[in-house]
């Protein structure tokens, strides 16, 4: 792809066509002013050198001239700002029907999980012409998801899900970089985004996968024993999770918030941070028990309960004592404060 001297990254997603005109306008403004100023300096240096201009003129300033070169740069600056803000605003939130991809960044690797269960490392396959939203979290330090050809960049934080979206417009293979310095092998944390025809993408999706994210999440939900408390029947010791995602949650202290992915993650890792009104703070801490990939699966499962609330079978067997002893990590450790 980059066989030649690359002058400018390829334009392979929707935002590139909006960003680049502003980009080129700024290049033009910059060239105009630098050339203008450098020429002025040169002309003055020749014209007013001591040998040809023996008497300096007495000019202390001029309000009119100074006002002019205050107002014109101000006008240009505001014009650029308004233009840039309008384009940035158009990035907006990912469209509701965007194809969702989830990923974790770690030193020094990108891992992506597709909803249907396809997993990939340092490669991301997406269909052309379709909105794609990539939700990312880091399991260690800060990284940054950067695809120059898409004009897409987003820092990936260790404590918060963030989502970047784009609509690829050209098939091909494009560079994926980590742009936020992340330690010794930062320059090795690179990969490819492969933009495919939708039909090819379907073939690729079908080729692999070990069950959907939600079904992997359901296994974990049983494995960690979540199901023994979070159930719809009378034996429940925690709130029923069906329909939770996207709903407003009321807490003991009277506050509320929308149950989004960040809320679900926090409630699993540190359940005592926010206690749902009407329930006891008895849930153990899962920090250090659930890794970020498992977390994405659990969240996918909880989200799937919105469409399919009966997915939880209260009569399904819960892990017994024997099983817990064989898999000690299943038993969450309560860490004293």
């Amino acid at each position: 792809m980059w066989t030649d001297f690359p002058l400018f990254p390829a334009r392979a997603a929707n935002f590139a066509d909006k960003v680049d005109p502003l980009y080129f306008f700024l290049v033009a403004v910059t060239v105009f002013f630098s050339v203008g100023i450098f020429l002025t300096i040169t002309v003055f240096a020749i014209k007013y050198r001591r040998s040809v201009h023996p008497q300096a003129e007495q000019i202390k300033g001029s309000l009119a001239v100074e006002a002019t070169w205050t107002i014109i740069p101000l006008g240009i600056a505001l014009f650029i700002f308004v233009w840039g803000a309008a384009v940035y605003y158009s990035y907006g939130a990912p469209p509701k029907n965007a194809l969702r991809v989830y990923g974790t960044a770690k030193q020094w690797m990108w891992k992506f999980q597709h909803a249907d269960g396809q997993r990939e490392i340092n490669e991301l396959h997406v269909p052309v012409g379709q909105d794609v939203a990539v939700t990312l979290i880091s399991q260690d330090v800060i990284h940054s998801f950067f695809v120059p050809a898409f004009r897409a960049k987003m820092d990936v934080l260790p404590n918060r899900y963030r989502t970047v979206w784009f609509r690829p417009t050209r098939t091909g293979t494009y560079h994926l970089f980590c742009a936020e310095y992340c330690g010794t092998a930062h320059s090795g944390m690179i990969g490819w985004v492969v933009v495919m025809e939708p039909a090819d993408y379907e073939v690729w999706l079908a080729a692999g996968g070990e069950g959907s994210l939600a079904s992997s999440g359901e296994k974990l939900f049983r494995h960690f024993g979540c199901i023994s408390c979070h159930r719809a029947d009378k034996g429940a010791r925690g709130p029923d999770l069906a329909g939770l995602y996207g709903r407003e949650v009321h807490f003991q202290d009277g506050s509320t918030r929308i149950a989004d992915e960040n809320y679900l993650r926090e409630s699993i890792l540190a359940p005592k941070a926010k206690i749902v009104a009407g329930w006891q703070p008895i849930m153990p801490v899962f920090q250090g028990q659930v890794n970020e990939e498992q977390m994405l699966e659990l969240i996918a499962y909880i989200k799937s309960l919105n469409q399919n609330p009966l997915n939880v079978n209260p009569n399904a067997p819960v892990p017994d004592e024997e099983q817990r002893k064989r898999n000690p990590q299943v038993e969450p450790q309560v860490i004293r404060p």
Partner: protein
Amino acid sequence: MSEQAHAVHAHAAPTGFIRKYIFSLDHKMIGLQYYFLALVAVFVGMFLSLLMRIHLVWPEASLPWFGHIKPEQYLTLLTMHGTIMVFFVLTTAPQSGFGNYFLPIQIGAPDMAFPTLNMLSFWTTFVSFMVMLAAFFVEGGAPLSGWTNYAPLSAIPSAGPGQGLGEDLWIISIALFSVASLMGALNFITTTLDLRARGMSLFRMPLTCWAWFVTAMLGLLAFGVLLAGGILLLLDRNLGTSFFVPGGLNINGNLSFPPGGLNPGGHPITHTGGSPLLWQHLFWFFGHPEVYIAILPGMGVASQLLSTFSRKPIFGYKAMVYAILAIGILGFLVWGHHMFMSGMSPYSAFAFSVMTMAIGVPSAIKTFNWLGTIWGGRVRFHTPMLFAIGFVSLFVSGGLSGPFLAQPVLDIPLHDTYFVVGHFHLIMGVAAIFGIFAATYYWFPKMFGRMMNETLGRIHFFVTLLGTYAVFMPMHYLGMAGHPRRYSQLTELNFLQPLMPLQKFMSIAAFITIAVQFVFVINLFWSMKKGKKAEINPWEATTLEWTVPSPPPHDNFGGVTPVVNHGPYEYSVPGAAKDYTMQTDPATVAAH
């Protein structure tokens, strides 16, 4: 201000070596101490950049003594180059060095307001520099988390080699540096406000003094925040607090609990709930004003020199003062433009963006007023003037890439690429260094009583100007092509292969630019001993330092308080006998 205050300072010059040259209370000696500290630091920093440029294009090269540079060593070099240059060169020489030496003389004071505090702040800076250099020699070596030191990379000792004791030393050094800068800032502000000679109203101060004064206020507000951030980071690293470290990090397969770490209650230490972005806020609240701390003194020097060597009053003196103040104030409202990609709401991004664009306006005023100062002048091209013009050139070419980075939407392709590296090296690095060079060539006769060699000065100027453009202009282009910064192994990446010839060109340009700096050092030390004897006022300038012998005596004015009758830039006044009117000339001179 009052004569009484001046009399307090009129003490006899110390005679012993230690009181005169080591623990001196004289602002001039302290200024020189800062200057030579910065000179050592700039050569250390330059040497590190030399190794970096070699590693980037010839990673297999084996160097004498050093051997083969490993990728993680490159990252250490990068961290220490940035830290040493920003703190111990760009913050130290223009403000603490020249500011210390010339602020009191230019306002007609016998010394700084607090001479002992002044001495303390230099020696704290010295200790800080020693602690920073010590990081190279401890187990694991110097840190590699970058001069911005982002958490959690900087907060977790296991995140890389050098992130153990080396990183702790880095933080301690920066904390000490912050304390020293706070003491210095307090001294500069008090001196400017309280010790001006009779007749030296604020609006008769040379623009250099305005620049040092505003820079000191920036330092006072910014370094306190950096100090706090550094202490919190030390606590996170060593006592298990969680200001910056969120829970459950999994680094190299280890959870981020310090191995066997126990808090004072005997419980295992668990990080939970910290915010990595808090570090970025604290750091950039300091870090952005720091850019202006580095560049404002250079703006003051450029204004001073363009006026003096054009034999013309500065164009729009008051506008220049208001522009410095505007840049200082706006400089505190823009730190978020370093964090557009970190996850801020678009509305916050717009606020930071519009403030950043607004800084372009006072910067444009300054640039155009500099051109207006040369316009219609009688221009002398001595070496200090060349460097002042070079400063304007670099300020323009480095500054104009700012509006790109001020746009969140253009920050998407450009953030953390070589474009940023090119931008800040031109504006904050090389422009500020040109300010230091201009000041050195200009004030050398005053400081040492001899002139520097003009021929060597011109060679130094032209090679450095072309060399720095050759090194840093191509970086903008690399960034536009999508080349991320802080990548250590360029030769192993397919994408970067087509850009390698350009990288090699930049490395060679860097070697030449570094080599010519030795011409400067030779000129500096040779001229101290062998330079032509300087008169009291070799440049025929107007400000107070040119009324006293070279070098100035202890107490600067020999116990006599100067009286100021004129503004700082009265050149070529019609009807005057000579083409410059000293600030201390009798008031009647201008009336003739």
